[in-house]
């Protein structure tokens, strides 16, 4: 298999050993790279009983065969570890140029284990790997850290680091790279913090050979132009380059897909207008800031001139402004972006943060929290200033409410009690993201059954069939169905959910960007590229099977680490309450528990979620399992 090195770098922070190891060729032929390689390594090396903060936990920074191929979307890479919130395996994807440099350094992944006695950074300069002290930058935020390390090592190095939130092991702390991309979900930043690992600094100069470079060049030219032209041709306010993911608000409005007032409401006109295109770009002075090789350009650089909420940095994505803005009834775009900026610099997942803030606002409304708890903050719905100030308390891990919110909404609700668990919207101790299962039932099924990273929308995204018009005809998901009937039906939900989860694992293992599909990137493009890079000549069946194989290992890891069918059938009370107004008012995903069991059957698992031997054999996992 070409396009990979079959090598991993390993750093043991306890002993200080830095080594390069060879992988057997069949490993990447089975698990591809990225999320798949991470799952394989966790399966081999992290047994039951190891907690996320234990030195024995591994954190794996993994590239795949697509890193370095100069195709739009091929800048992404994956981080895999045991998550502090789930206390189970998680995959978090991130982009910019760090993965490209790691691949050019001659390895497919970096595996970090152990714990340093004092803060350190890992430096990888082509084949040379070493540890260096990081005590002087411990405490610096993620943007300062990036600036300082680029000054120290050179601008051609890329930095993956944590901010103070990761250092203090906030449960949903993020890893940050390039001051613009964040591995938020799963709390990977806290794993780095638990190891006293502040940053990984990397530069590489080697190019990994591919099987068919001429074919790859031809595909890249065609695909890169197609992605650019397709986005350009989109209707006004739907161009992602012009508006970032604020295009989602206008689309999701009609489907009732967004979290409003801690998932209580179906309408919020001023919020939807202000936190959407074109207001987003105007208010934030947003300019496209594409990742390496990207011709789509969804990310943007914001420069906000404002006395209270001025900042320069990455503009918020849909999930961030939905969870920290719409979900709190805050309709001030600058304030929401500023709150997100604080989260970015401290290194915090904005999805979990927004969910915790919304819980706090509702708890204040219902008298569970008082001004004594909030340090005087008035947590009234729509209070932008309170949202920003409470974000600071969480980011600084202030004793009391700030600290507890940083432990996650389940912990905060359990501590403050008084029935507040009823509006703590989480599954498996991870907060639910900004796609409403009442808008499409498959969203809920994906949240409950997701084995890659808990209730993570984009580890699957089956709701995109219904709210974003995504189709995967190569995997049998097409428009020859009655969408209005299927969106609130369980009949085929297992098939849709499983197909999207398999697809998601492929993308996270190659590693590629799921946004390319919004601009015309197809599974056909993906498979053709894969075959040109690797020389493996797969078809769609082998391709999907690889995604399913990786999901099967992720599920086995879930089971090993204690996730049970009880966890996967415990649906948040709030999301089982139908909304009173707006699109799909009156609808709730009744029957979701039975749908999970039906999903298990569809997957070839028993009633506890354990893959049957027949499935293990079908997935060619007999040797591993």
């Amino acid at each position, binding site marked *: 298999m070409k396009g990979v090195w079959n090598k991993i770098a390993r750093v043991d922070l306890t002993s200080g050993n830095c080594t390069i190891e060879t992988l057997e060729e069949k490993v990447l032929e089975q698990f591809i790279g990225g999320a798949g390689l991470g799952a394989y390594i966790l399966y081999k090396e992290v047994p039951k009983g190891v907690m996320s903060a234990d030195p024995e936990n591994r954190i794996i920074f993994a590239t795949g065969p697509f890193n370095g191929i100069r195709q739009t979307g091929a800048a992404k890479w994956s981080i895999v570890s045991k998550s502090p919130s789930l206390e189970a395996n998680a995959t978090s994807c991130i982009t910019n140029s760090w993965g490209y440099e790691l691949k050019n350094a001659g390895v497919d992944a970096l595996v970090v284990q152990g714990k340093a006695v004092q803060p350190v950074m890992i430096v990888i300069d082509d084949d040379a790997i070493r540890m260096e002290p990081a005590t002087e930058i411990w405490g610096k935020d993620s943007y300062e850290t990036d600036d300082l390390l680029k000054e120290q090592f050179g601008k051609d190095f890329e930095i993956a680091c944590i901010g103070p939130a990761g250092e203090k092991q906030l449960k949903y702390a993020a890893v940050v790279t390039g001051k613009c991309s964040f591995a938020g979900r799963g709390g990977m930043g806290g794993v780095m913090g638990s190891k006293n690992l502040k940053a990984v600094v990397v530069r590489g100069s080697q190019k990994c050979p591919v099987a068919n470079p001429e074919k790859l060049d031809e595909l890249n030219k065609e695909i890169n132009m*197609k992605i650019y032209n*397709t986005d350009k*041709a*989109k*209707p006004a306010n*739907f161009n*992602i380059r012009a508006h970032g*993911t*604020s*295009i*989602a*608000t206008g*689309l*999701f409005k*009609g489907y009732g897909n967004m979290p409003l007032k801690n998932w209580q409401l179906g309408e919020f006109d001023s919020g939807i207008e202000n936190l959407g295109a074109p207001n987003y770009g105007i208010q934030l002075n947003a300019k496209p800031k594409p990742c390496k090789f990207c011709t789509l350009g969804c990310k943007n650089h914001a420069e906000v001139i404002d006395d209270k909420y001025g900042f320069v940095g990455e503009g918020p*994505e*849909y*999930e961030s402004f*939905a969870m920290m803005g719409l979900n709190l009834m805050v309709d001030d775009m600058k304030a929401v972006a500023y709150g997100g900026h604080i989260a970015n610099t401290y290194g915090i997942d904005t999805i979990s943060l927004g969910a915790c803030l919304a819980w706090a606002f509702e708890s204040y409304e219902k008298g569970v929290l008082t001004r004594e708890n909030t340090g005087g903050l008035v947590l009234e719905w729509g209070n932008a200033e309170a949202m920003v100030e409470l974000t600071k308390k969480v980011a600084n891990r202030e004793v009391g409410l700030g600290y507890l919110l940083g432990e996650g909404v389940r912990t905060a609700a359990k501590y403050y009690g008084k029935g507040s668990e009823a509006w703590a919207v989480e599954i498996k101790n991870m907060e639910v993201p*900004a796609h409403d299962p009442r808008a499409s039932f498959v969203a809920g099924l994906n949240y409950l059954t997701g084995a890659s990273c808990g209730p993570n*929308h*984009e580890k699957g*995204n089956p709701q*995109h069939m219904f*709210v*974003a*018009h*995504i*189709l995967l*005809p190569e995997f049998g998901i*097409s*428009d*020859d169905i009655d*969408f209005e009937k299927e969106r609130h039906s369980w009949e085929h939900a297992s098939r849709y959910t499983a197909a999207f989860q398999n697809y998601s694992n492929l993308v996270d293992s190659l590693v590629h960007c*799921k*946004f390319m*599909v*919004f*601009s*015309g990137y*197809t599974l*056909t493009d993906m498979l053709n590229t894969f075959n040109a890079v690797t020389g493996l000549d797969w078809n769609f069946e082998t391709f999907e099977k690889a995604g399913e194989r990786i999901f099967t290992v992720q599920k086995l890891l879930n089971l090993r680490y204690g996730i049970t069918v009880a966890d996967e059938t415990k649906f948040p009370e709030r999301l089982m309450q139908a909304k009173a107004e707006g699109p799909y008012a009156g609808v709730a995903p009744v029957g979701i528990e039975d749908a999970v069991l039906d999903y298990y059957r569809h997957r070839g698992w028993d009633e506890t979620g354990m893959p049957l031997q027949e499935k293990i054999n079908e997935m060619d996992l007999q040797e591993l399992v």
Partner: protein
Amino acid sequence: MKVTIKVRGFPDVEAALGGNRFMLEVEGSTFGDVLAEMDRQFGEDNRKALMVQVLLNSKYWVKVDALSTPVQDGNTLSFSNMVAGG
């Protein structure tokens, strides 16, 4: 030939077209012929707005500039605007 046209994710154009699913009678046998008929009936601007992602018979992607792609009587062409946030 008679071709079914499906449209998803273009609210303004769907309103101009009078719906998101309809039958089109076309002289000819190619994708280009279908587009020409859509121009004639709905106006070039409306048709051009749909040229984002096109699927033939819910199975095969059609490149938007591949005008000579064969289309047969009874086929379906789906025009989808795939959009989302993350």
